[in-house]
């Protein structure tokens, strides 16, 4: 889009930052939570926290799909791979630790594990090798789940099955707002999840919890403006749901994607790494599609895994309770080269994003 660069206009950014200082309360802390790894990247990369008043804090919630995938589901993928099934998945998920090993560790032991860019690539690979079994590790939030639904309805090849591990964002936001000791004052809602689900699922946050909630895009000005809108709502004492990202998010969302997801998935309770079970936060395949379910096809079921390794504070980083720099392992025992926790593995993990920026600042 030709006008895209204007979303990074430094003069406009400066003016919005001044407005933020004007509308922010002079006393008392304000804590705004976002739930998207890409928002954390924008905030960290463009130094947005440094533009805010001292009493306004922006924290990162569980917005990294790789990070929240519980060890038990990684263990299932590892078990399937060790049974001789070729497991495909998005890059980072292959490195995320299971209870004992990651998919890449399984690869080192001889299992076949391949990185793909999309589920359609995974299917194309399986079609080329019809005599081999393939399983696709389908992680991701509402942004990604529609592509899985499309391919399930397209009748995938017989030698292909899905480990469906998709998670839903609004139930996680509900969990965060109900954690009283987190003391949240507003939500920046995730723009790309919202392109699919629309605005309605967020209505409860202002209505029931009195939380200003603003859907934001991913340019630095989008995020700055969303922070301004939240602070303005707080100042007026009128919490409401607003959409800053109107160029991509419609009120109703992507209804075509929603219909396909409803056809293919049921919503069920789901475990989130380090957090535990969140009610109605996971997609599972509906019974009529069970022949595509890798759990059933390859007979694996892991109930409990080891989500957090000794000393790791991922479970606190993931809900924004501590900053990565407050973890004793951060950049000591836990580095991008040798990650201990999932938050250091994924390029959308808060720890990993902070490392990149700290390195940039140091240079």
């Amino acid at each position, binding site marked *: 889009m030709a006008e895209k660069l204007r979303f990074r206009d430094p003069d406009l950014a400066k003016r919005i930052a001044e407005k933020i200082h004007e509308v922010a309360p002079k006393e008392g802390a304000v804590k705004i939570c976002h739930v998207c790894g890409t928002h954390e990247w924008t905030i960290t990369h463009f130094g947005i926290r440094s533009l805010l008043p001292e009493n306004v804090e922006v924290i990162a919630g569980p917005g990294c799909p790789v990070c929240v995938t519980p060890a038990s589901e990684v263990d299932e993928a590892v078990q399937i791979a060790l049974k001789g099934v070729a497991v495909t998945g998005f890059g980072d998920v292959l490195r995320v630790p299971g209870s004992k090993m990651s998919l890449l560790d399984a690869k080192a032991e001889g299992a076949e594990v391949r990185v793909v860019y999309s589920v359609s690539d995974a299917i194309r690979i399986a079609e080329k090798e019809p005599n081999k079994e393939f399983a696709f590790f389908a992680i991701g939030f509402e942004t990604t789940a529609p592509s899985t639904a499309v391919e399930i309805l397209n009748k995938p090849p017989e030698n292909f099955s899905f480990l469906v591990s998709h998670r839903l964002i609004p139930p996680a936001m509900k969990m965060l707002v109900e954690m009283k000791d987190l003391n949240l004052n507003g939500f920046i809602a995730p723009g790309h999840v919202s392109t699919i689900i629309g605005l309605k699922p967020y209505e409860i946050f202002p209505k029931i919890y009195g939380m200003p909630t603003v859907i934001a895009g991913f340019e630095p000005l989008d995020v700055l403006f969303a922070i301004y809108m939240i602070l303005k709502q707080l100042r007026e004492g009128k919490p409401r749901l607003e959409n800053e990202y109107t160029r991509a998010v419609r009120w109703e969302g992507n209804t075509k994607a929603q219909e396909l997801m409803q056809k293919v998935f049921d919503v069920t309770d789901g475990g989130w790494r380090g957090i535990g079970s969140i009610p109605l936060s996971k997609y599972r395949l509906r019974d009529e599609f069970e022949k595509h379910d890798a759990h059933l096809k390859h007979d694996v079921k892991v109930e409990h895994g080891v989500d957090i390794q000794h000393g790791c504070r991922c479970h606190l980083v993931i809900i924004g309770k501590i900053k990565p720099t407050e973890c004793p392992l951060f950049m000591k025992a836990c580095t991008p080269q040798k990650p201990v926790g999932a938050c250091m593995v994924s390029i*959308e993990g808060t720890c990993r994003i902070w490392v990149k920026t700290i390195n940039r600042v140091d240079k």
Partner: protein
Amino acid sequence: MCLAIPAKVVSVKEDKARVDFGEGVLREVNVALVNAKIGDYVLVHAGYAIQVLDEKEALETIRLWNEILEAETVQK
């Protein structure tokens, strides 16, 4: 993971479209989830277009930002 990148639709054939991410190389993406026409900008996530971008809204957003900032400066 939820990263989505805008691309311009160059051609459409059933569920597949060739799009330009602005790098001069055309790539094929799946457009089963959207009603994309030639010339539209779509948001592409993991090989699938998830929404058609509204160029008018993009311009409107920037205009509104300026307007709000101006109006509130005057009110002061």
